[in-house]
């Protein structure tokens, strides 16, 4: 409510944010219902989500949304009151309605045209579930409002209302535990708690007998309690609370004549007491009650307090922290070059500064992290729609929904993941008949999981379908001229053919996944996120696609190296070791193809300087330094470099779209001395497998920049 200009616009914006949460709760609830969790609370949650969306939509005059939500809610109400038991088909309809509801919400939010035909069709379906319904509502004029007498300005008289015909008895209980009570292991707190459970209670602790610290005998009890209890109970019920400590304490119970009378409580009551001083007019300012509900005992998991922050503000913070990191690196370099001793105060202080900077950076990155749950929920919709389109029964199983990933990664993962899920449903899984014939359940399974693994996020899409038909894949690749007809390929190599541009095995282009978008597009999208994708497939058992992504797109632990006078950065997490080559280490397979012997194995050599177009190919590698790198898919490579400068954290600066997308180059960064360095993507370099073409123009420009 910070914008005094238009508070309604702000409430409206917050309504749509709240809708996203409600839609998520709706999805969750429906998933639980589908899993057979038909407890009343689940259906209540589902009902309430739709109901709340309807309520808010009504306030903003979103008629179409109200109309649809109302019908949906009415059907759910039937389920809630056990007049309708949803079968498989009904649940399917509920999911569709939920999907449609979220479409409507988003269309309303973005002022887009509403998908009215879908609304109409679904409304018809929902109507079929309803019998003849006549809603009987009470009109406001049929209800006679009941006035209250307000004795303003004080509220002290509110209590006098209790003077009515049937007053609730008020008790004063004095309770003083004896030494034996503690000795027998009884806990006064438990007793007081049980007492409070009887009704409204005010507990005050009498510390009058508490001696000074020096005279305090730890074994002697000094405390007594006075409890004012307003409860419809008799004395026996109160005594029952103290049943087990009878004789171990002093207990006086008296019933007050008038509940409104101020108690002559011995000790000053620590609890605020609205009725204690009737003469005192209450201050006009309200003591604000908490907006959310972080209080003890309030509704379960929703009580975690949350602040909504504009993403732009976070972006600014992330950028600023990025600058801070660069600044800190520059400062550190200039101090070093000023010849300061590493043990000087300034250098020590800088070290501390460095650690703090890193902590701040980590914390800021955490703000951007989001659970993948929203993404997974979108995928469950994709599965529903895709399976309906190809007429297969498919169940999506998700795991690791709470895994947190950078928000941008989540957003940019939606498209490739959608494509992979569609592929899994369309191509991965067999038809129900085929599954039955091979002894599987008719219902196919697609498993979507996320997990953190060694500083990266790993997302898997696995189906229990027929697996990759490698024979067919190879034939297709040969026919399309992607591989020579006499090529002998390993299983992994054949699987990886799926990622080649322009590859499609589907005999006929289905209306689902065959949209001219192949797995190569998926792979490119993943790579742009700094991720990698791999396949594992087993005939008749299924196929698993594994995506491995960095946790954040903003920083990178890098190794700064020199190649042909250029400064380049390699992601540190791929570097296994560094080697200095001697003449007998290197073996030439054929001109331009060399391998290095590393502990009995052979690793191909990639001459970075030549691949990036900085200089001609070397013929002699003796004395060269190579970085041995290992990729997620197990591939290893030896990258020839001229020297290693440093290991450090670099801030990733994305290359603008106006730059030519050079293969092998992931992004750029600014180093401590202000120099710009390119960040390499080793997997891309190896996948390119040969000299990478870099246009001379951009290279010259880059050199010119450096002066």
């Amino acid at each position, binding site marked *: *409510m910070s914008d005094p200009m238009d*508070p*309604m616009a702000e*409430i409206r914006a*917050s*309504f749509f944010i*709240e809708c996203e949460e409600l839609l998520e709760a709706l999805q969750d609830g429906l998933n639980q219902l589908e899993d057979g969790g038909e407890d009343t609370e689940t259906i*209540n949650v589902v009902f*309430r989500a739709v109901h*709340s969306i*309807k*309520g808010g939509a*009504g*306030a903003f005059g979103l008629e179409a949304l*109200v109309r649809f939500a109302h019908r949906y*809610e009415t059907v759910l109400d039937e389920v809630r009151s056990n007049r309708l038991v949803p079968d498989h088909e009904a649940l399917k309809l509920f999911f569709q309605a939920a999907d449609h509801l979220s479409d409507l919400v988003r269309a309303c939010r973005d002022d887009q045209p509403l998908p009215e035909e879908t609304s109409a069709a679904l409304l018809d379906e929902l109507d079929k579930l309803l019998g003849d319904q006549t809603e*009987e*509502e*009470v*009109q*406001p004029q049929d*209800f006679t*409002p*009941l*006035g*209250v*007498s*307000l004795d*303003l300005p004080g*509220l002290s008289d*509110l*209590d*006098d*209302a*209790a003077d*009515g015909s049937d007053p*609730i008895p*008020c008790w004063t209980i004095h309770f003083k535990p004896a030494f034996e009570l503690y000795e027998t292991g009884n806990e006064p707190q438990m007793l007081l708690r049980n007492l409070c459970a009887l009704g*409204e209670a005010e507990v005050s602790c009498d510390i009058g007998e508490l001696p000074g610290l020096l005279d305090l005998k730890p074994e002697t009890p000094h405390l007594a309690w006075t409890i004012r209890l*307003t409860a419809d109970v008799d004395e026996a019920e109160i005594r029952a609370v103290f049943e087990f400590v009878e004789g171990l304490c002093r207990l006086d119970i008296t019933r007050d004549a008038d*509940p409104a009378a101020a108690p002559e409580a011995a000790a000053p009551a620590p*609890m*605020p007491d*609205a*009725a204690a001083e009737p003469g005192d007019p209450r201050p*006009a*300012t*309200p*003591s*604000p*009650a*908490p*907006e*959310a*509900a972080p*209080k003890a*005992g*309030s*509704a379960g998991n*929703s009580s975690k307090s949350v602040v909504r922050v504009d993403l732009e503000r976070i972006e600014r913070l992330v950028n600023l922290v990025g600058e801070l990191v660069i600044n800190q690196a520059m400062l550190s370099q200039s101090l070093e070059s000023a010849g300061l001793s590493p043990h000087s105060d300034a250098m020590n202080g800088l070290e501390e500064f460095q650690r703090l900077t890193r902590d701040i950076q980590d914390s800021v990155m955490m703000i951007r992290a989001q659970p993948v749950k929203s993404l997974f929920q979108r995928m469950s919709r994709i599965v529903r729609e895709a399976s309906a389109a190809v007429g297969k029964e498919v169940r999506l199983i998700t795991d690791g929904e709470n895994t947190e990933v950078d928000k941008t990664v989540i957003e940019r993962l939606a498209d490739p993941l959608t494509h992979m899920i569609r592929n899994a449903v369309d191509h991965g899984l067999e038809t129900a008949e085929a599954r039955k014939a091979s002894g599987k359940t008719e219902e196919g399974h697609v498993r979507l999981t996320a997990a953190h693994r060694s500083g990266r996020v790993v997302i898997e899409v696995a189906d229990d379908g027929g697996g990759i038909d490698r024979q067919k894949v190879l034939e297709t690749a040969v026919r399309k001229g992607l591989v020579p007809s006499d090529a002998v390929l390993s299983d992994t190599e054949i699987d990886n053919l799926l990622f080649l541009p322009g590859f499609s095995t589907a005999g006929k282009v289905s209306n689902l996944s065959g949209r001219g978008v192949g797995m190569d597009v998926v792979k490119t999208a993943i790579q742009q996120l700094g991720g990698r994708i791999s396949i594992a497939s087993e005939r008749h058992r299924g196929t698993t696609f594994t995506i491995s992504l960095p946790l954040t797109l903003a920083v990178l632990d890098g190794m700064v190296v020199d190649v042909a006078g250029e400064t380049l950065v390699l992601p540190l997490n791929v570097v296994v070791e560094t080697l200095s080559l001697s003449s007998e280490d290197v073996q030439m397979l054929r001109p331009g193809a060399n391998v290095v012997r590393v502990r009995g194995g052979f690793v191909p050599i990639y001459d970075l300087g030549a691949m990036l177009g900085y200089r001609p190919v070397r013929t002699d590698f003796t004395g060269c330094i190579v970085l041995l790198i290992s990729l997620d898919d197990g591939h290893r490579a030896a990258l020839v470099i001229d020297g290693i400068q440093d290991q450090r954290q670099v801030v990733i600066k994305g290359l603008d779209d106006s730059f030519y997308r050079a293969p092998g180059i992931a992004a750029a960064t600014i180093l401590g001395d202000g120099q710009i360095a390119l960040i390499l993507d080793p997997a891309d370099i190896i996948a390119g497998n040969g000299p990478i073409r870099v246009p001379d123009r951009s290279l010259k420009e880059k050199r010119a920049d450096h002066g």
Partner: protein
Amino acid sequence: MALRDQLRVMVVDDMSTSRGLITQALDAFGIRAVASTSDGPSALKALESSPVHLVISDFNMPGMDGLQLLHALRTGARTKGVGFILITGKADKAIIEKGRQLGMNNFLKKPFDPSDLRACIEAVVGRL
């Protein structure tokens, strides 16, 4: 001093949008002493230390619904006489009848205009 300057109101609704809308409307009427909570139990707890004249509560809330809250208010010595307005998406006969029995002062059906809310409040506490 006008009534609106002294009236203290508590808004109870699980949806922050609704709380915002009601609070916004009350503010427009000149009622400044408005507290809000997202559920019945925390409303009851807040009322213990800072009582109000009028509670405006949603019906459909998780855990404790509006009528359960009303019941708890009416059985609490301190909150017995508080004014209670129920806001409901559906003025279901059974709900309204039960509300009447529990001593509900008035009800309002969603969606409503601020003027509806004003009339509804004035019917209970008098001219603002």
